[in-house]
């Protein structure tokens, strides 16, 4: 046991290189990091809210934190509490059953705050609009700053969208 602990301390880190060749994603990520550094003081805290998605969008957002993407490198973090969040990402059409919880989540965020709708349903262009059980896209209850459509949008699409958002906020600030 003691030997194991000692080895862990002094041994070279156990890690391997991924064959990651997505030059575009990497470049985009570091460009985004530069912007986040300036506009958000080095970190962009995102709170994800599932208001009624089919869970594919959640999976793609989770994928952003896996080794292939690892967006924490770019200053992006998904936070547990809305009180720590700069941006609310809304997935799925807003269901009647989620309306109150969704509004409470938004209300708990400190200002200034931004809302990004991710996925077709949240953008109001999915198949659910005529259903009795949904209000419609995220813009039915929130002021949506950016829409990232897709069924679901890929991790790269999401990063592209966030880049556009941060650029827009920077413009407004200036």
């Amino acid at each position, binding site marked *: 046991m003691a030997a194991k602990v000692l080895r862990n301390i002094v041994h070279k880190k156990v890690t391997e290189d991924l064959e990651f060749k997505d030059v575009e994603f990497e470049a985009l990520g570091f460009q985004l990091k530069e912007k986040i550094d300036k506009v958000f003081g080095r970190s962009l805290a995102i709170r994800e809210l599932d208001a009624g998605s089919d869970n594919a969008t*959640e*999976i793609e957002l989770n994928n952003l934190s*896996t*080794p292939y993407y690892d967006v924490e490198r770019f200053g992006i973090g998904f936070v547990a*509490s809305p009180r720590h969040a700069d941006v609310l990402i809304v997935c799925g059409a807003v269901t009647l059953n989620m309306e109150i919880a969704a509004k409470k989540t938004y209300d708990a965020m400190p200002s200034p705050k931004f809302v990004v709708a991710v996925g077709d349903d949240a953008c109001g262009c999915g198949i*659910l609009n005529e*259903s009795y059980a949904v209000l419609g896209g995220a813009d039915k209850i929130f002021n949506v700053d950016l829409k990232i459509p897709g069924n*679901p949008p890929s991790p790269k699409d999401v990063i592209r969208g966030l880049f556009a958002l941060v650029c827009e906020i920077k413009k407004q600030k200036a």
Partner: protein
Amino acid sequence: MSLLEQIERMIGPLGAVEGKNNELYVSVSAQELQRAIPFLSTTGYELVSLFCAQDFDGLGFTLFYVFEKAGFKQALVIRTDLGDDETVSIAKTYPSACWYEREVADGFGIQFHGAYDTRRLFLHETYPQGFHPLLKSFKNSKIRTVESSEKNQYQFKQMNGEGVCHVAVGPVHAGIIEPGHFRFSVIGETIFNLEVRMFYKHRGLEKLAEGKTPIECVKIAEAVSGDETTANAVAYCIAVEKICDVAVPRRALQLRMLLLELERVYSHLGDLAGMCVDVAYPVGASPFFVLREEIFRQNEALTGSRFQKGTVAVGGLTRDIPADALKSLSAYLADFKSRFNLATHIDSSFFSVVDRFETTGIVKSELLEPLHITGPIARAAGKAVDTRVDHPYDLYAELKPKLITTESSDVLARFYIKSQEVNDSIRLIQMVLSQLDGGLVSVPWEVKDGYALSIVEAPRGQSIHWLYIKNGKVDRYKIRTASFCNWQAIEHAVLGNIVPDFPLINKSMNLSYAGTDL
């Protein structure tokens, strides 16, 4: 003895009996059903679904009770026409009927006498009393909601006593997770009761399907649960194909197998990774995340969608899969198993991981049948069930998936089952790739009226779709996913465990909220 003879012995000579494909429809009166229920429950018939249709065969409500019995390829569907909007509950004999009956009560306003739980299920406080969306008299449209008040508050079970604390969690959770409400009653850190409240994501999918053409509804099937896109789409398409007598070309069937098994692989990889994350061992999770991302990319190369969306169609596939994508999949899989098995070996030989996995979240075997717990959770508890083997569909009769079971029924058992199933799925994919036929991937077909049941094994377990086409349009589409059953297992599996182990148990079961809430 045939299934039919057995039933006749139970409830006397039968009226209308209709057998087609893998279903046997038996029509009985409500009284006869009540007589049959105790027999059915003691002779190994498991209730796998219960749903309602309005104006199915003449006017009024018809209830369908779907049963399965080990060893019988056919599913037994007992049909009861109701004279009015009330009947007798079977939940005291079949506890799994509780959620179904509440679902039917919400959807159609049918009363179940003698039910031990008559709270609303998918209609939360915001829906007005007396609103029943699945009634034909309700045309799908926006409704006027009501404010939540003291009077219409959902009544949770009361758990009181010295030292009892309540921990209410959700619907919005501290992570990128779907919404649902968990109410833990704890003494110290130990959970002694959990009540799960779901259906926050109720999107009205079943109503949405009504009046649409069978082709339009493939999208609805895909939207049931994003990570079971193909399983649900195939289940739906099989139902249409049964009704309309469509003979799907062999190449399309083979490619469906390929996609279904790839879906199982990425789904299980996510669970394996999640279990490691939830015991604070991200190093162990990383290899699974890497493999999973690679499978997503294979999906994209094969179908144009990381979730294989828009690929399965009635009559086959929407388009053929390019030959070079298949070739590169085959090359990619060559060293998949060795990479995967190295990762599972590292995790399952790491003492702090095994320590957290072992004896955590045990699903008692006596709960399996009464709650109809299905999929890897059931197999990890020693129950040899797999729809691919029990009711083979498409090409599973030829492919012969391995039925892997283990006994201990804890998180470790589910980790083991899922890792074994990944290996077997890879074997099946390689088999398909090596024997792939040429030819078309779809056939022209025409809509016919009729109804059919379709049962598939999604990554999470058995998924049942029942479809009724009337005048060329979908009149009723009932979906029952594995998660609908398995959510009820978690209320039992967490008892005696500590609250911090709940996320781990939850992850090991991998329950879909969207697939339950519909």
